[in-house]
């Protein structure tokens, strides 16, 4: 709601650009871990459902829900801007929807992967612990002029919330293949690790 208010006040959709990632994080938090802790997953897996499909469907559900919420907010923001006399660019709106989809898919994949590693909402703690630790190390790296550490921390940030810019679409320039491949690599690795971890996990009602 705050970003929407900001967008209306500033007469631009920019404040809504980054909301997909936190929404996906919230929706995917505990996606697997909470079901393991509560025993729901053990019950679900007595049905003919494979473990990889549980991981993939949880990821898809969180991605889809976060994208729909973000798109609705963007549409609402655009309507509010039109009412106030500003005219948001349609191509820019499409770019923001595509970026939201990529951010949501990336963040949801990472959160679902973390969720297969720990029970309950431990994935949220793991996410923020990694984020804070990497930020502290980045400050240390900047202070000590250790470029390799700063670069490593930037890569960790990128891996925690993978994003993909579609700005090139508006300007007719070629996309950055590194950015595209980095995003796809992080998402596929997160899903693969999540499936591998859940496949090897011993599930019982005492687990969690």
């Amino acid at each position, binding site marked *: 709601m705050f970003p929407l208010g900001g967008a209306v006040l500033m007469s631009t959709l920019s404040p809504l650009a980054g909301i997909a990632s936190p929404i996906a994080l919230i929706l995917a938090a505990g996606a697997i871990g909470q079901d393991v802790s509560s025993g729901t997953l053990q019950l679900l897996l007595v049905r003919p459902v494979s473990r990889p499909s549980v991981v993939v469907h949880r990821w898809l559900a969180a991605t889809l829900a976060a994208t729909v919420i973000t798109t609705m907010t963007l549409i609402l923001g655009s309507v509010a801007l039109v009412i106030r006399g500003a005219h948001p660019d349609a191509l820019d709106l499409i770019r923001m929807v595509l970026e939201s989809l990529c951010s949501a898919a990336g963040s949801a994949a990472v959160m679902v992967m973390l969720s297969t590693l720990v029970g309950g909402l431990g994935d949220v703690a793991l996410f923020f612990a990694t984020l804070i630790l990497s930020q502290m190390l980045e400050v240390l790296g900047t202070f000590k002029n250790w470029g390799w550490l700063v670069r490593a921390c930037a890569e960790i940030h990128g891996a925690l919330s993978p994003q993909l810019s579609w700005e090139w679409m508006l300007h007719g320039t070629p996309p950055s293949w590194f950015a595209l*491949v*980095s995003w*796809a*690599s992080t998402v596929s690795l997160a*899903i*693969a690790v999540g*499936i591998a971890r859940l496949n090897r996990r011993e599930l019982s009602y005492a687990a969690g």
Partner: protein
Amino acid sequence: MPPAERGRVSGPSRQDPKLLWIVAAALLVARVATGIYEEHHPPEKPDLVSWVPAAAAPARAAAVGRPILYDFSAEWCGPCQAMERDVFADAKQAATFSTFVVPVRVVDRRREEGHNSAIVDSLQRVHGVSAFPTVVIVGADGKAIDRLEGFPGAQHFVRWVATASARARMAPGLGSPIPIP
């Protein structure tokens, strides 16, 4: 024989995603390869700053109440390209930068064409430009408020622009006071 249950999974329920691992490994290799390639051949990034023509800048500055920023650069200048990539092509930095000043780009073409246009020559002479990049912030009366030679990094640069433009707004003796936007 009982009818097959709808949605029944054939094969092991813990099937290892071999294809996904192959795709992930291939993407990881491609990530390293494209990273190395783009380190040496940075992709063309769009300039996100709405540059104002030099002739139109004073009127525009007076209209929006911001000082003029002259960016003296050249195509062959390495630090100018770094500034282009890290500030003018970066959505966040370019947006912040554009809120403080009316930006004017003054590109030196002597090396490519043998001479500059009259307005480029005149601006370079007036502001004593001897190196690239040189950035000069000018108040509404045309007097230079501050100047920066070289590119000190995106964050430092944008901070300098913010500070210098604030000084330009508060500077006494300007022809007409510049209101805070």
